[in-house]
């Protein structure tokens, strides 16, 4: 078994053993969909009959993107903790490649993101979000999008975790990144309803591309609310792929320097 897989396995074992973390991973996204979703659903429903369910379908991809992003950036904390506590040294004196340490972390991070995304999806569907149903191509495409997107943000998280020395600074980073990336995107409202400067911001934000990608692969009816003006699907895949590559390269460069 390759070293990256062993580390992934170990992180999963720890996730199960460490009940607080496991609980947080599962519970946080549920809170988002239920609280925010219910609130928005009734606001929209009051404004226009029938719009409530449409909005849930529109919003769930956004919440998936937000959770996957937060989860992926937080994945760096595992690496940071292993660095601070010295556990990294056990890996570094072992006959395994340095890259596999990084890959193991990226893999366990993306796994957690996928778990969270799945939960949101289930809760979202229970609350009325409409998916494409039995469309394997759509689901696979959506899965691929989330994995690539998770890798990109995991890369950013791991890059910072490789160089910083405190968890406090790291939490600040998560906070600084997630809020603007969420609100400066099409995750919660359609692009065309935004003022121009926000539209520009949204277009250079990878979150927008994964959200619109998910709306076209896993969810169907969300496009109605967006007025059919979604970012083209091919562009979504392209941007998210490039983002994943850049994120991993960034993490690799930063990690190489830290273990020299």
């Amino acid at each position, binding site marked *: 078994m390759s070293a990256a897989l*062993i580390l992934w396995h170990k992180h999963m*074992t720890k996730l199960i053993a*460490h009940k607080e973390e496991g609980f947080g991973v599962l519970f946080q996204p549920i809170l988002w969909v239920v609280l925010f979703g219910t609130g928005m659903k009734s606001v929209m429903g009051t404004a226009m009959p029938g719009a409530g369910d449409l909005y849930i379908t529109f919003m769930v991809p956004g919440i998936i993107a937000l959770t996957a992003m937060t989860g992926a950036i937080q994945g760096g904390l595992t690496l940071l903790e292993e660095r601070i506590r010295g556990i990294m040294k056990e890996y570094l004196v*072992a*006959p*395994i490649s340095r890259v596999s340490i990084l890959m193991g972390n990226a893999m366990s991070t993306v796994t957690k993101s996928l778990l969270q995304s799945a939960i949101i999806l289930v809760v979202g569907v229970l609350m009325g979000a409409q998916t494409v149903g039995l469309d394997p191509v759509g689901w696979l495409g959506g899965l691929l999008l989330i994995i690539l997107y998770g890798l990109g943000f995991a890369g950013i998280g791991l890059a910072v975790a490789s160089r910083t020395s405190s968890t406090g600074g790291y939490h600040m980073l998560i906070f600084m990144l997630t809020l603007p990336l969420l609100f400066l995107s099409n995750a919660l409202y359609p692009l065309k309803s935004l003022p121009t400067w926000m539209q520009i911001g949204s277009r250079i934000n990878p979150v927008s591309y994964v959200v619109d990608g998910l709306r076209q692969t896993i969810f169907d009816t969300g496009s109605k609310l967006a007025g059919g003006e979604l970012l083209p699907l091919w562009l979504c895949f392209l941007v998210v792929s490039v983002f994943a590559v850049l994120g991993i390269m960034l993490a690799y460069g930063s990690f190489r320097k830290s273990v*020299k």
Partner: protein
Amino acid sequence: MIEKKQNNIVIETKGLVKKYEGKVLAVDGIDLSIQANTIYALLGPNGAGKTTTVSMLTTLIEPTSGTAKVMGFDVVRQANEVRHRIGVTFQEMVIDDDLTGCQVLDYHGRLYGLGTHEREKVIKELLVLAELEEAADRRVKTYSGGMKRRLELIRGLMTQPKILFLDEPTSGLDPQNRTTIWRYIRNLKENNQLTLLLTTHYMDEAEALADIVGIIDHGRIVVEGTPRELVSGMGADTIQITGSGDVDSFINKLKSLSFVQGVTNTDGLIKIGIDAGNKRLAEVVSLADRSDFPIEEISVTKPSLGDVFLKYTGRQLRDK
């Protein structure tokens, strides 16, 4: 004969230097030549360069200059070969608290590519060795400091290394746990054909364990030898005196005595290395009398590695 001796050398460094960016030299030209099946102790105060030396030998950091070979493999160019053959425990406790003892060992074995059956077999044996069978399925969180240390020790042994590096193996443990760990370390060497390189700032630890002691200070080995050689070089006994008067002139007079083998003075505490303490006590006292050096306290002790350290570095090796 010489050829054979060469073959037995498992750790060899030449002019090993580590300079951290913008800082002083942490290791300043260390030459080591350690034979197989010995326990070698690097003894020195905190900051002497012990951990840095071990970090280079275990491939964690690269030397600034000089070379180091472990089992004949270069620690930089053949790092992976070295990693396959060594076990390491670090100065700080490095274990995942959320895993059970068994899991800690199992994941470690996996990282080194050990098969399932081999892992099961070795883990069982090692848990017995460290008397951790009953705690094996408990999370490490619930372990005492001594238990964690023992777990770390056997983790280093999981992969049947030829050389075990122990960085401050008993630092922070209470006396009872220290003695237990010492017993394990001695057994390890006897039963496993192991070479051990350990670092310590406890002289009693070096005395209790080491076949060869290298005293390290300011990144250099100042003296090296078996504990007995080092200590006997100090004289058979030490007379310790404090008193008032002209210390320097008294010391000069002491040095001129034929049976005195060395005199040191630290903050007024004079230590005299001597062939036989009880026999010479009277002569030293009468010399003090004649030199107008009133004695406040006088005692005869056996010299220790601490005295050796003092002699070669001019400073006390304080246990902290």
